[in-house]
């Protein structure tokens, strides 16, 4: 029993400091908590980073409506209106990738957070100002994932 508790606490503590994985085109993080709860942490962190949550896509709901079984699968759309306006005016090609979006995917009692790495777009747009913007988005997304993992880690530690 003590061993299990210690294991959980260590896991939670490890998540307090863990960073998200960047595999070039995708930023991903696994969170050891149910997706319904993690989604709330994601939304909170998105807003703490100065973004507005524009809407929530209920992918699982859509599929269920058409008879397809699906686990909890949501997409959080968010952005800053000034940035969206700047991009749509100067780089209309990029509007397909805005607002930014994070997929919140249930895997049993854990959650996978995934987002396209904005820096994957960098090679297509040599413009310096846009490179800075893409880098900032990447940095914010990493920070959001890190915040979520910290919050979940703290929750695991405090619950045990």
């Amino acid at each position: 029993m003590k061993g299990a508790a210690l294991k959980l606490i260590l896991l939670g503590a490890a998540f307090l400091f863990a960073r998200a994985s960047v595999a070039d085109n995708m930023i991903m993080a696994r969170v050891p908590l149910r997706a319904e709860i993690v989604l709330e942490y994601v939304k909170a962190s998105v807003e703490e980073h100065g973004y507005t949550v524009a809407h929530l896509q209920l992918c699982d709901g859509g599929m269920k409506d058409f008879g397809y079984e699906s686990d909890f699968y949501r997409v959080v759309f968010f952005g800053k209106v000034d940035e969206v306006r700047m991009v749509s005016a100067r780089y209309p090609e990029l509007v397909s990738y805005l607002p930014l979006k994070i997929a919140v995917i249930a895997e049993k009692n854990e959650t996978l957070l995934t987002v396209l790495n904005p820096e994957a777009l960098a090679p297509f747009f040599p413009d310096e100002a846009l490179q800075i913007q893409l880098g900032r988005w990447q940095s914010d997304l990493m920070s959001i994932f890190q915040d979520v993992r910290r919050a979940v880690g703290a929750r695991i530690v405090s619950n045990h």
Partner: protein
Amino acid sequence: MNLIRLLSGGLAIAAFSVLGTANAAPDGRELYIEHCSACHQMEGQSGIGLPLLNAKLADVSDNYLHSTIRLGRPGRVMPAFQRLSDAQVGAIVKFLRQRSETKEIVYSDEPVAGDAAHGQALYAENCVKCHGADGTGEGPGTGVTTSRERTFLVMPASISNTGFLASAPDQMIRRVIHVGRKSSGMPSFDGKLSETDIDDLVAYVRSFEQQERSVAEIDADERPTHVFESPHDFETTVKNVKAALTGANFRIFPDRLLEQGLTDEFSVNTRQVGVRFCNFNVLYGMLKIEPRLGVVLPCRITIMEREGGEVILVVPNLRVISRWFNNDELVGLWDRMEETFTNIIDEATL
């Protein structure tokens, strides 16, 4: 009281692991959490990535693991972690060894000499059912996702993959054919095939190195989106796009303005709209192939009226996006879907 002690102990260990000196040796567990756990889960149970079973780790060398992390599996989801240092990759391998309590099998680099032509006949008879005629693995699927159905618990290894072939020496392939892999359902051919037959099979598997990847490279000048000019006004363009989508069997969601939800309803630009659409049958099938698809959902054609009244349509280039997933099966499907999108735009802008 015990819990408090445990709590502070856990925190202290975690804090120490992070706040240790910058020159400290890389921590394999931290690196595993950061780079591997998203796909393989914390204990290696599998997810988008294959399970890192103890029995499987016991079959391979540290060099194989190192090379697999470094090279990935092109087209099979597992990325190539080129940015990690050798010390970091080594730390992850060491962590995997410690966690699984396994010892590596060290294979010699001595090549196996065999008759690849005879090996091909043996392959067709004994291996093709699971590994496929081209060695890419059984049927649809690129890995294991615990929340979705699969024909096999573990996808048979893509033994023609360049990442696999560069990581697995002949002697390892030979041994796996000999003893099988209980962890993944690979049977032992000991006693069923002679030593010479097995050597011939190894030679044939090695010959996959000459096989070209089925996924074509995209042109260097391809852009991540297509931008089309519409000959029609904004409203007509939106209407035409919807009609073309309906004709192509897509379900259309309510319009969504690009700025909607980001500002108040009086400030939102109403001349920038996303027409969002989906074919749930296709989507359901695609999510089995690539569970992370949500990062580009839903399908959307953005119609914008520019200053001066020019109307443009912005459509994601599926050929470019699909390649970001390192998933050949998705690429094949999306290359075909790209044609559908092109037809829709053609019809809408006639």
